[in-house]
């Protein structure tokens, strides 16, 4: 009867002899520890309940608690963590009561324990903080956080990684992080990124990740390494911020600005078409009365050449104005600039004589970039240069190779220059000193160059002219035998 009562109390009840050996216990002890009666009775309570080796210190302390309780004949309350049969930690509130015989000698102890794990979690949220924090993190979809070991194998895949990249933790753990990195990204592969992390400790770059579905996701990726006590990298932490929405908006602004740039060039474009048109109709007029077959052929060839000139220009305009999907390719920067020149060389400032000087680096290594976006940058810079010289002047375009690391393009004009107090604002959106400007040209150019991991800078002197310098990284060769 008493046994039944004890087995159904829901608390742990143990009777210990004065040395702490278990003489009697209820079923709750079996349930929690997973041990059966034979393994429990006669064993020391500390051995049965605190089986892991890490609790040696705890055992000594508990033994002292029991000795003191018997000596002072006083109950003791304490809390302690034990491991259940599944290896989970359970928080138990213990009451240790000494039992003395009639001659007042310590006979043993009654140990009553109550599992308060769940109650404590409810009452005290701070104990839950890890779980809550993890829940919050996993709810963030714009960021992905993953870790790799020094070899690039993914060891943790958390905080939005599953949502952003479509891989489940189970599928990706211990796979190489290279599968998350889009091979066509602007700044090449994972190994180059890690190379920079090893060099700089921390590296931030705009790049593209590859979702499981094959979707390419533009991100700002920050990679840190963490070092072990010997100072060796023991892994990498990756935080990727999804910038798809920002990219979409930037791209719409880019398209709009392209058309605005063409609008500014329209008078110049009309000029470039009117000249060959005049030659075509004029030559046709002259050929009407021409009897000499050789002169006839010569005239027809002239007409054909002029028609081709118009076709080339119209092709250039269409290529420029066309909506294009942003795509990074291996490109020659000199060629990109050459394609812009036919659009600009007939700029809408008819009254001024403007000379273009080109000095192009021969054998320029290739860069990885979007040719349409870069054309937009150089067209903007050239339009600005032209518009700064209403009285005429010289535009110099120089390309050069900076130590095999960067391609540099300098566009220098001899125009009005930019006052110092405007210089700090010129890459800000909607900043314009022109009556007809959108104020987006340079800010878009700045964004484009930034997304190519390059830089754009300006130097200017009022009355002397301005120089814009664009630097874009060359394609670096992958480290042989890399990850």
């Amino acid at each position, binding site marked *: 009867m008493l046994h039944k009562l004890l087995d159904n109390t829901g608390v742990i009840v143990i009777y210990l002899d004065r040395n702490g050996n278990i003489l009697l216990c209820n079923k709750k002890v079996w349930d929690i520890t997973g041990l059966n009666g034979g393994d429990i009775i006669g064993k020391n309570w500390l051995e049965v309940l605190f089986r892991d080796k890490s609790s040696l210190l705890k055992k000594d302390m508990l033994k002292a608690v029991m000795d003191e309780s018997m000596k002072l004949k006083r109950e003791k309350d304490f809390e302690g963590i034990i491991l259940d049969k599944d290896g989970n930690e359970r928080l138990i509130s213990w009451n240790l009561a000494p039992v003395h015989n009639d001659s007042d000698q310590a006979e043993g102890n009654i140990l009553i324990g109550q599992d308060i794990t769940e109650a404590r979690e409810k009452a005290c949220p701070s104990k839950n903080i890890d779980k809550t924090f993890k829940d919050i993190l996993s709810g963030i979809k714009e960021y992905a956080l993953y870790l790799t070991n020094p070899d690039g194998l993914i060891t943790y895949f958390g905080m939005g990684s599953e949502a952003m990249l479509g891989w489940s933790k189970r599928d990706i753990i211990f796979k190489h992080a290279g599968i998350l990195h889009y091979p066509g990204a602007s700044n090449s592969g994972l190994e180059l990124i890690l190379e920079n992390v090893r060099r700089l400790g921390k590296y931030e770059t705009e790049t593209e990740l590859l979702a499981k579905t094959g979707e390419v996701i533009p991100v700002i990726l920050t990679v840190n390494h963490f070092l072990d006590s010997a100072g060796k990298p023991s892994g990498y932490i990756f935080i990727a911020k999804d910038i798809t929405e920002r990219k979409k908006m930037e791209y719409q602004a880019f398209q709009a600005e392209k058309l605005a740039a063409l609008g500014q060039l329209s*008078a110049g474009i009309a000029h470039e078409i*009117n000249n060959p048109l005049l030659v075509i109709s*004029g*030559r046709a007029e002259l050929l009407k009365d021409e009897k000499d077959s050789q002169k006839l052929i010569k005239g027809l060839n002239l007409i054909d050449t002029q028609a081709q000139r118009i076709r080339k220009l119209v092709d250039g305009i269409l290529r420029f104005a066309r909506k294009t999907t942003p795509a990074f390719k291996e490109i020659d920067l000199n060629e990109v600039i050459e394609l812009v020149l036919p659009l600009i060389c007939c700029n809408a400032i*008819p*009254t*001024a004589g403007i000379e273009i000087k080109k000095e192009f680096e021969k054998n320029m290594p290739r860069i990885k970039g979007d040719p349409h976006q870069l054309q937009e940058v150089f067209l903007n810079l050239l339009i600005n240069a032209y518009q700064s010289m209403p009285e005429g002047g010289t535009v110099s375009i120089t390309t050069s190779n900076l130590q095999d690391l960067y391609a540099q393009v300098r566009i220098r004009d001899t125009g009005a220059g930019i006052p110092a107090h405007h210089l700090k604002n010129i890459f800000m959106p909607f900043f314009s000193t022109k009556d007809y400007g959108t104020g987006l040209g340079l800010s878009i150019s700045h964004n484009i160059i930034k997304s190519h991991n390059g830089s754009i800078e300006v130097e200017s002197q009022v009355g002397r002219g301005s120089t814009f310098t664009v630097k874009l990284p060359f394609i670096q060769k992958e480290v042989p035998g890399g990850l």
Partner: protein
Amino acid sequence: MAYKVLVVDDEDEVRSLLDDLLNREGYLSQACATGEAAIELLKKEKFDVVLLDIKLSGTSGLEVLKNIRERHKEIPVVMITGFGYDEDLIAKSKQLGCCGYIGKNMPVSQILSTFKHLVKKAREKEHHVR
């Protein structure tokens, strides 16, 4: 006696076309590519009219017009341009003293008739002044 026309245009094909067209129309045409060359030629030779492109490489057409006006008050100058009908350019050209303005986007027959008309008007004005 045929009118002597100085054609100034920096594009080879346009220059040679205007030269050919004017010669066919009975003018005595001579052509050069730059404003500087035109100013030099005007110092050495006498022309009855100048057909001057506005957008020239080097010194612009409007600068050349200004220069001609300062040195040769009597020579009629007709401006021609690929920019077509541009109010600003027309106003600036008139202000600097041209006697007319032709857009290269006009049909060839109209370019020639406008040119003839402008030359005739300038000639009459000259007679009238005399």
